[in-house]
């Protein structure tokens, strides 16, 4: 009770320092949030692309329907395979027209072959698996040719790995910088109150009594900073999302964890700063 009152008093007495602390936490988490948002959306986009990793087996003209149905059953039972679709000649033509608008006219004369389109399970679309499935499908007699964009799959996989790695690296760097700044901010606010703290100790205040208001203060600032960062990140998301890109936002659990991180940063920053200061007086 007394400590909470003291915490509020301290903030009221040094509004500027308090604001600086909150802004720093908010800003750091915001920068972090923006990058997380980009990362989440790249992952989302890659997942969309990855879902489209498919092996297309062209079927000879005149293959009996039973053979194809049987093969589809077989293929469906491969552990890596999520779905198998049969696309007949008209379907192929329609799709070609849709995909390649500019060359619309070209396809009227052409007869595209029918195909089996095999979608792999999300997460199992790595190059090895794809090649594997392609080999096995090729062994069917009625399959003329198998296409799966060899290099493209390799590239995509590489991209995903690198994106994840880079994202993690950048994220950690940002987190580290945030914690340095926040630590320094709190350190400064402790130093600004160093005289007060030493006087408190001299008239008999225990370390706990001195520390409590700082911890509560840090906690409140962390929460407020976290909420501000959430607000800013959400505003940025809204600004981009509705206009021209389809983005996903964090799910609520992630948001809650983010705000708790803010609180944790606030409390830990305060605790270590006050702690190390008290050790020295």
């Amino acid at each position: 009770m007394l400590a909470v009152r003291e915490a509020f008093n301290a903030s009221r007495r040094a509004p500027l320092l308090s604001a600086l602390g909150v802004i720093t936490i908010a800003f750091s988490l915001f920068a972090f949030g923006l990058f997380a948002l980009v990362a989440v959306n790249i992952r989302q986009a890659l997942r969309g692309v990855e879902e489209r990793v498919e092996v297309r087996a062209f079927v000879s003209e005149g293959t009996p329907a039973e053979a194809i149905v049987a093969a589809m059953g077989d293929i469906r039972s491969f552990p890596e395979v999520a779905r198998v679709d049969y696309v007949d000649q008209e379907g192929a033509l329609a799709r070609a027209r849709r995909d390649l608008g500019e060359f619309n006219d070209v396809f009227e004369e052409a007869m595209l072959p029918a195909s089996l389109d095999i979608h792999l399970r999300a997460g199992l679309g790595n190059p090895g698996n794809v090649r594997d499935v392609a080999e096995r499908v090729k062994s069917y007699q009625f399959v003329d040719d198998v296409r799966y964009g060899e290099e493209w799959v390799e590239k995509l996989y590489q991209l995903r790995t690198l994106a994840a790695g880079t994202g993690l690296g950048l994220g950690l760097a940002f987190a580290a910088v945030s914690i340095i700044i926040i630590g320094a901010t709190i350190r400064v606010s402790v130093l600004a109150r160093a005289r007060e703290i030493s006087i408190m100790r001299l008239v008999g205040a225990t370390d706990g009594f001195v520390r409590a208001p700082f911890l509560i203060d840090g906690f409140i600032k962390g929460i407020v900073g976290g909420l501000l960062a959430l607000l800013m990140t959400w505003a940025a998301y809204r600004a981009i999302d509705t206009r021209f890109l389809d983005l996903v936002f964090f799910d609520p659990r992630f948001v809650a964890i983010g705000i708790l991180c803010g609180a944790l940063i606030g409390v830990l920053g305060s605790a270590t700063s006050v702690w190390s200061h008290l050790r020295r007086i």
Partner: protein
Amino acid sequence: MIRLHDVAKEYTRTRVALSHVTCQIKRGEFVFLIGPSGSGKTTILRLLYMEEKPTHGDVWVNGVHSASAKRKEISQLRRKLGIVFQDFRLLEDRTAEQNVAFALEVTGASAATIPQRVTRVLTQVGLASKATQMPRQLSGGEQQRVAIARALVNDPYFLLADEPTGNLDERATRGVFQLLRDINASGTSVIMATHDLEMVRRADDARTIELNHGRVVFDSDETPPPETRYTPLLGQPAIGGPSEGNWPAPPRGKR
């Protein structure tokens, strides 16, 4: 009970603030600590409230031993002390009454009684009308009296006062002195560092310890005084005496 045994304090190798100080102060005593500027008075008091530890020797205050005291114990000890600092050390961002109240809050005193105790002690030092002013809105003497009030408010076992009347006029000085006598009469030990030799001469029943260059050169409780060849300050006329060089020599450090 306060006990110092062969205490030395060196701030740095060549800055010896105290050496070979041994003395004992019993509960209920009234002790003046005198000596020229830089002789170590403040240093002795800082050892007593354990802001500093001796570089040699031992200090016991109310059962707490300097060498083994934990931070928690030191906090507990200070709550039983009343301290008037030479430079006041008021909390700059609190009013006079909040400063005094703070010394009660740290002891966990019941919140209900605090305002009335604070008001009483501020009235005693003549500052009731300035209770809500900030330290920097008070005159030097007023700040000093807030510091005195803070030291008195928790009815301490020991009162350590470092030059508590340096910024006060004669009438206020008498008032503070009377307050210290009163609190001493009710059982509190008072240890007061001062330059006001008039006051010391007047209170002839009090014990006087004189320091010079960090050594005890006179203790009215001991006969003969530790360094018999030194002419104590108290023996000299107050002012206008023979001028034997205006300034004290710098303390001799171990070289």
